[in-house]
Each structure stands twice: as structure tokens, then as C-alpha cells.
């Protein structure tokens, strides 16, 4: 079971909440302070992408974020329920009618994630996709007394 599991309506205003929760749990799990900015940004990018996929696909299901504390590592999995295949689900008019091409932003979000996180897996299928990211953790050096 995930250490903390978060589900939120696929709305842009909740992405910030996901970032804050993820950073707080990552800090507690022992992710290096210097890396927390990257965790915050990467989880924000993944959630933004999932929100966009749900909104464009008219999917009412929530976006799911799993924050998993494991031995020596911390994982975040952001799951969406958007069918990723076939890709041509959107009509040509929808794509052409949007001057700020969503696909470009989607790709830029993935570029930021892969530039930030060394250990990342992106999967996509008919029932949804997920982005799983992992960071090493350092256990507390000494026990507090």
C-alpha cells in the first residue's frame, strides 16, 4: 500500500495541492532537501499532464497520485484513466482549432520530467497511463533522543 494516496478532481487548481503534499511526504521519507524542488516540479508536470488528458478526454474520474516510501527510495506514481490508444481520438478540427497546441505542452512536460528525474517510467495503455518516478532516500543519520 502507498504511504500516502491522493485522488483529486482533474482540475488545474488542485495540481498545486498535489505538489505540496508530494514534497511534504518526500521530505519526511528522507529525500535530500536539494532534490525537493525537483520532486515538486516533476510531480506537478505529471499531474498537469494527467489533468489535461482527463479534461480533453471528458473523463470525470479523479487523477491518482501514489506516494510510496520504500527502503532507500521514494516513488511517486501519477495515474490517469485516459485511453492512450488510438492516438487519433481527437478530431483534426479540435487539434487545428487550438492555437496553443496541447501536444507541444504535453511533450514539454515530459521533457522536463525526463530532464529532472533519472529514474522514470512512462506507461500508457487503453485503460490509462502512468508516470512513475523514483528518488533515493537517506535514512536519518542518528536517532533522535
Amino acid at each position, binding site marked *: 500500500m502507498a504511504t500516502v494516496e491522493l485522488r483529486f478532481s482533474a482540475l488545474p487548481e488542485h495540481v*498545486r495541492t498535489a*505538489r505540496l503534499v508530494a514534497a511534504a511526504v518526500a521530505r519526511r521519507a528522507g529525500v535530500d532537501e536539494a532534490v525537493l524542488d525537483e520532486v515538486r516540479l516533476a510531480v*506537478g508536470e505529471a499531474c498537469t499532464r494527467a489533468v489535461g488528458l482527463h479534461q480533453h478526454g471528458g473523463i470525470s474520474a479523479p487523477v491518482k497520485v501514489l506516494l510510496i516510501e520504500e527502503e532507500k527510495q521514494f516513488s511517486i506514481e501519477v495515474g490517469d484513466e485516459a485511453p492512450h490508444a488510438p492516438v487519433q481520438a481527437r478530431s483534426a478540427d479540435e487539434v487545428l482549432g487550438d492555437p*496553443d497546441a496541447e501536444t507541444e505542452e504535453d511533450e514539454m*512536460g515530459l*521533457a*522536463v520530467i525526463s*530532464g*529532472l528525474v533519472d529514474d522514470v517510467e512512462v506507461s500508457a495503455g487503453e485503460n490509462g497511463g502512468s508516470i512513475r518516478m523514483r528518488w533515493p532516500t537517506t535514512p536519518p543519520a542518528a536517532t533522535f533522543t
Partner: protein
Amino acid sequence: MDLSLSTETVGDRTIVRVGGEIDVYTAPKLREQLVELVNDGSFHLVVDMEGVDFLDSTGLGVLVGGLKRVRAHEGSLRLVCNQERILKIFRITCLTKVFPIHTSVEEAVAATD
């Protein structure tokens, strides 16, 4: 924290001071501001990012959109940023090659190249 925006005109340059977080929720406000400025004839923009706490790819997309709009009018869009965590995002996406990034508003206003 929300997004704060203010503008100031210096000669033919318009300085847009941005503060707070630029993400998927707040980026549309920045987009509206940039579109409005270009529609009103301000084609040389300096976006001061010194007060920005957080920037993601949605924000980058808006800045690229702004750059495209001013370039259509032979204009320019310069950034002011000294924050390493923000600069890193521009480097990852190779946008440091697209935007002139300055260390101060004065430098950006004076720049002509």
C-alpha cells in the same frame, strides 16, 4: 500563492513583473496579460521573473507563445532571472537558446542585439 502581475513602460519597452507561481492554474492569466500587451501595440517585452517562486512547462509554453506573438511584429521578449532553480528549467528544455536571459531589468531594457 497566486500569481501577481504588474506592468511598467520604459521608452519602447514594457516591463512585466511576475510574482508567485506560474503553473497550469495561473499560466492563463500570464497568457492573457501578454496577449493584451501585444494587442495594444507593445512589441518589446521584458518579463521580470525575479519574484517567481515556481515555474513549470505550462508557464514555459506561455512565454514561448508570447515570444511568437511579439516576433510576428518584429518585437522582442527578454527575460530577467537570476534564480538557479528557474534557470534550470530553461536549460533542461533548451529554451536558453530561444530567450535572451538577463541578470537585471536595466540590462534587459538597454539590450538591443
